[in-house]
């Protein structure tokens, strides 16, 4: 494997990690708020807080890791995406800032506030939607590159079926992933009321998730036929994804093996995510930038990969420790510690 492919795979993998942990986080924030205003909050919300409080900061780092890494491996992305994304990027920053701060203010401040809960619940739902703009413009057709200047064609972006279908998919996936995780977590906590509620949410959000995925296939075939034909070549990955999805929904519907069900949800998104990513290659930004022409020089690539390995050796045991203390410790989950 060339350094380019290794680099982008690692980054893609981290973005996948962010997709999962952030979805759980963002969805939980939304459910926290929704349950509060619909007065079903007491038990449910305590459960959400117990899982999220120790990990919220870690979630954020996954994201920072990705954008620092992509500039590191592919400095030219800074030029194209940096110039074009000033407005959408700034809006994402504002949403992240509101979400992160108000989460902490609400959780660690002296009391639970409805306004704070609204701010972090709603901003959490908008963040994934705002991020999808990067994925959308990477398909090409939304940038004007001329006279050494890059401009975002905002009108094209806002009127395109493709960009809206990605937004819809992002929002419903967040709610689906989060609900699936919380179903499992509530079950482990032995909290029946929360379990029933989240099981209902999961099944409810399963249908729009799959409909939105279909919509993506359809709109991509019209927007970028070259990418679509690459996707067809890798159709087995998407079929696999569908099978994982069906398995997960079946298990949750029949109230069996909820841990496995969540793993299947993770695999569903894993195969779809990597299928999408692999079929997008070699382009980072269609048709202006490929992984080959934007790559950092080799010395730096090796240094980055070494730093990355050293970093993982430090992080993986720490993450395992964190999970054993909070996620897989039955007493903690049940609120006994």
């Amino acid at each position, binding site marked *: 494997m060339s350094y380019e492919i290794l680099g982008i795979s690692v980054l893609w993998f981290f973005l996948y990690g962010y997709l999962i942990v952030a979805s759980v986080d963002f969805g939980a924030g939304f459910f926290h708020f929704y349950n509060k205003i619909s007065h079903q909050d007491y038990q449910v919300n305590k459960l959400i807080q117990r899982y999220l409080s120790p990990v919220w900061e870690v979630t954020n780092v996954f994201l920072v890791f990705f954008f620092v890494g992509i500039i*590191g491996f592919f400095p030219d992305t800074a030029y194209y995406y940096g110039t074009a994304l000033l407005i959408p990027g700034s809006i994402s920053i504002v949403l992240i800032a509101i979400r992160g701060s108000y989460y902490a203010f609400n959780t660690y401040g002296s009391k639970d506030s409805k306004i704070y809960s609204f701010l972090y619940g709603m901003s959490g739902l908008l963040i994934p939607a705002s991020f999808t703009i990067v994925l959308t413009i990477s398909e090409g057709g939304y940038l004007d590159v001329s006279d050494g200047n890059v401009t975002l064609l905002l009108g094209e972006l806002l009127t395109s079926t493709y960009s809206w279908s990605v937004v819809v998919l992002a929002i419903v996936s967040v709610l689906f992933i989060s609900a699936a995780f919380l179903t499992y977590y509530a079950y482990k906590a032995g909290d029946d009321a929360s379990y029933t509620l989240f099981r209902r949410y999961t099944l409810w959000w399963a249908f729009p998730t799959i409909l939105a995925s279909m919509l993506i296939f359809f709109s991509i075939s019209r927007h970028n036929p070259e990418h679509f034909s690459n996707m067809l070549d890798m159709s087995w990955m998407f079929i696999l994804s569908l099978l994982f999805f069906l398995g997960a929904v079946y298990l949750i519907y029949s109230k069996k093996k909820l841990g496995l069900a969540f793993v299947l949800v993770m695999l569903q998104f894993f195969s779809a995510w990597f299928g999408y990513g692999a079929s997008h290659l070699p382009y980072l930004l269609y048709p202006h930038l490929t992984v080959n022409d934007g790559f950092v020089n080799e010395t730096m690539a090796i240094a980055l990969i070494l730093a990355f390995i050293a970093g993982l050796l430090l992080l993986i045991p720490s993450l395992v420790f964190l999970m054993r203390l909070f996620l897989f410790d039955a007493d903690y989950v049940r609120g006994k510690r």
Partner: protein
Amino acid sequence: MFMEYDPAMFSRMLTGLTLGFHIIFATIGVGVPLMIALAEWMGIRKNDEHYRLLARRWARGFVVTVAVGVVTGTAIGLQLNLLWPNFMQLAGQTISLPLFMEVFAFFFEAIFLGIYLYTWDRFKSKFRHFLLVIPVVIGASFSAFFITTVNAFMNAPQGFELVDGVITDINPLAAMFNPATPTKTAHVIITCYLTSAFVLGMIGAFKMLKGDRHVYHKKAIRLTMTAAFIFSIGTVIIGDFSGKYLAEYQPEKLAAAEWHFETEDAAPLVVGGFLSDDEEVNYALEIPYALSILAHGDPNSEVTGLDQFAEEDTAPLFVHYLFDSMVFIGMYLAFVSMLYLLLSWKKKNWMHHKLLLWGIVAGGPLSILAIEFGWVFAEIGRQPWILYDIMRTPEGATTSKHVDAMLYLFIGLYALLGISSSIVLRKMFKDNPAAQEMEQRGIDERGNKS
């Protein structure tokens, strides 16, 4: 609004705004974990629950500041790419390694901070819980180290060859460990510690002035002022090295800071004063030989003046005010903490005198101001360069048409975050005063737990 649209100018303003806001929280984020660790360690060693409660309460407030630090840090990370795409395209080839490592250090800190905060009463041994704060201290200081090497690189770029605008022959380690790295990183880290010690000392002193004479606050002041004194000695020493570094590698920055117009031997140091429109220095105190000593450690040495540089290559002269204010506050902090230690040693009944307590309270905001002054001096002082001697600042900026609108957006955001975080912090401690928490936890006057 008030000026003609120039993306480079607005990019500078927005970057300055974000960093100016971020470093308040970042400084606390680097220094407070160390103070928390010191307090918890004292608590275990002396078997005194007061210190452990101190650590616990500091940690609780710390989380709120960390949250704002994290989100504004994410903001500046993204803004670097959004506002300076041309700079990042060039420099991304060399600075990505320390940026990458900074994220790792931060990741490490984030994991253990989560664990530390939620395991206060979970382990039987207090010592095991204390061990968890060590990775937080290490992660915080190392992320400060790595990010400061990036800034050092911008001041003293090396570790690559530039041939017709294309970077080749890269040596990532040489870029990271450039000549500016030792003094810059050391100065940043020690002043973070110093500032945090004073900010925490301020809280205890303020409580005592408000009439709460609990021994808990006295212990807090003693711990923070002892630490502050040590850190201020370190700051003075490293500050002196930084001056010598500037004289050697960036003489025009030192010359602008000191209003040293003509190259001369046995140069005097200009302290304070005002500059008139025709560059006459008024009301300044001149200390003979001091600049030569500061620059080269020799009272008769020659110090390069502004006359050696073209005007378009030097920084604006107002940086002198920033530099002097920073140094003055540094001296003040060293003096207050030393006075406290002297009194606690020789004149115990004066050590909680009202005046001294007010002096400590003033030290909190002043130390934050010194951080801001020092940082603005360092950044404006290297203008017009974004990459010293290689890329001028406007060349690195975005060409986007909407930077002004984004500036106003972020002014609004930081105002909101600043106000809400102050409200939250105030409420947190007002609704749950230390005395009340001691009663709840069954801690008596001597710090024993019943």
